[in-house]
């Protein structure tokens, strides 16, 4: 069985969602393929609960949206549904707390409004071919094989899956020891008390002491808590070492180990804090994510590879299609982030050339697998920026398909 479309979007995370909406609204018959069963990617399946990259980086000014269009649409919908009237000022950045269940709902509603858009979920992308001037994707839904055919293809898998299936020379991957570490996030319910910066430091000190005394595993060291916009709910985030130099996000045995480690540390923290801290006394076991939050795997090499220095200097480009404002938040180990802020609090441009290669017409990429170096990725991978690059790639794909 074959499904045909003008534009195929592979991967329904923040970038793919925005790409699919842009494509369908541009008049293209659009297929959006997702291997999980919710859209929203890390923001729904991994419980990443802050939208970063949505706002202008100058926090000496009142907050302002950075990229018009779909990022604002999603950001505003989230503010309305969570009862927030402004983002939080967190140190030197503005962030918007988001709720994973509401993000899934917003994604469903935005997609349902587009008659040109068909969503396919629960299906793995298993192969990629060039058939004349069409892209052909083989997909597999629990043993049922299908083909998708389209004039233009947008890879928003986050893993450069298309390149890895058809021509690995189109992509690159940082060495294992430096790959940004995965995050394990779960949701605690039934919390009491208020949880400000001072509270977080005290919890941190309790955890560190418990690790030293052998009451918690060393992996609990990087645990951080952030309240949801809804009372009684707090998210726990732990960065995982993931075997450091041994980490391979494409090895299923190592993936399983990372997920198990995440669950172990989350539940160890739950047992410990429930016994030791009044605010956790009534917490049932935390709600676990569908999967760990992946920060870096493989990404494309486009006609331009944007660098950390481009962003650090807030460089602008003739062909820019989106703006970046999030600092480079580097997490090469589980001992906390190292930030490189832009030299001046001004946005950096993301050129269209980071979203395609001229030698592969009709293929676009955005989100976490756009063309960037390791350092720039630490800024560009965040959800708000993924929405912006996804929307831009969706528009480029419609334009290409209309010329076929």
């Amino acid at each position, binding site marked *: 069985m074959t499904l045909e479309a003008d534009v195929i979007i592979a991967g329904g995370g923040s970038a793919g969602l925005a790409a699919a909406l842009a494509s369908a609204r541009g008049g293209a018959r659009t297929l959006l393929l997702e291997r999980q069963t919710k859209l929203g990617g890390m923001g729904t399946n991994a419980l990443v609960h802050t939208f970063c990259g949505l706002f202008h980086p100058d926090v000496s000014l009142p907050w302002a949206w950075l990229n018009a269009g779909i990022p604002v649409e999603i950001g505003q919908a989230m503010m309305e549904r969570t009862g927030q009237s402004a983002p939080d000022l967190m140190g030197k950045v503005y962030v918007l707390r988001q709720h994973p269940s509401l993000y899934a709902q917003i994604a469903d509603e935005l997609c349902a409004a587009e008659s040109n858009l068909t969503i396919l979920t629960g299906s793995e992308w298993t192969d990629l071919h060039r058939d004349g001037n069409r892209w052909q994707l083989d997909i597999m839904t629990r043993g049922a094989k299908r083909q998708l055919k389209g004039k233009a293809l947008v890879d928003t898998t986050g893993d450069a899956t298309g390149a890895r299936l058809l021509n690995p020379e189109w992509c690159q991957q940082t060495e294992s020891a430096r790959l940004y570490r995965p995050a394990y996030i779960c949701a605690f319910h039934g919390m009491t008390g208020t949880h400000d*910066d*001072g509270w*977080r*430091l*005290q*919890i*941190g*000190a*309790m*955890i*560190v*002491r418990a690790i*030293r005394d052998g009451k918690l595993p060393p992996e609990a*060291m*990087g645990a*951080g808590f952030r309240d949801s916009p809804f009372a009684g709910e707090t998210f726990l985030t732990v960065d995982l070492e993931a075997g450091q130099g041994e980490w391979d996000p494409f090895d299923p045995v190592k993936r399983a180990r990372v997920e198990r480690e995440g669950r172990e540390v989350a539940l160890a923290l739950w047992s410990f804090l429930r016994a030791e801290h009044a605010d956790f006394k009534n917490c049932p076991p935390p709600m676990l994510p569908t999967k760990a939050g992946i920060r870096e795997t493989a990404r494309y090499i486009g006609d331009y590879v944007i660098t950390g220095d481009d962003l650090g200097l807030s460089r602008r480009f003739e062909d820019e299609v989106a703006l970046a404002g999030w600092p480079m938040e580097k997490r090469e180990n589980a*001992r*906390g*982030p*190292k930030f490189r802020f832009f030299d001046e609090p001004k946005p950096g441009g993301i050129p269209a050339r980071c979203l395609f290669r001229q030698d592969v017409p009709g293929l676009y990429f955005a989100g976490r697998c756009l063309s960037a170096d390791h350092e720039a990725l630490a800024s560009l991978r965040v959800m708000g920026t993924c929405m912006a690059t996804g929307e831009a790639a969706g528009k480029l794909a419609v334009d290409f398909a209309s010329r076929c």
Partner: protein
Amino acid sequence: MPDISPNAVIALIVEHQIVETDVPLTPESDLFASGLDSLAMMQLMLHLERQFGVRISPGEMTRNHFASATVLARWLSHPNRSAT
């Protein structure tokens, strides 16, 4: 009661690479502006306890106490501060 100097605190921070900064730390440097984050604060707490035999309770982990090497040293050396 330990007598802890600001320079001893700085030496500890440098030895264990608690913060990474291009500018050398002085006793008055703002530690948070120099890159001290909450996780680094925890590491520093453990090193201070080990090196100087002090005990810092979770309730004492505040940004005020860790503002600079001078503030930290003065606070840890204060005679009214419980050593346990």
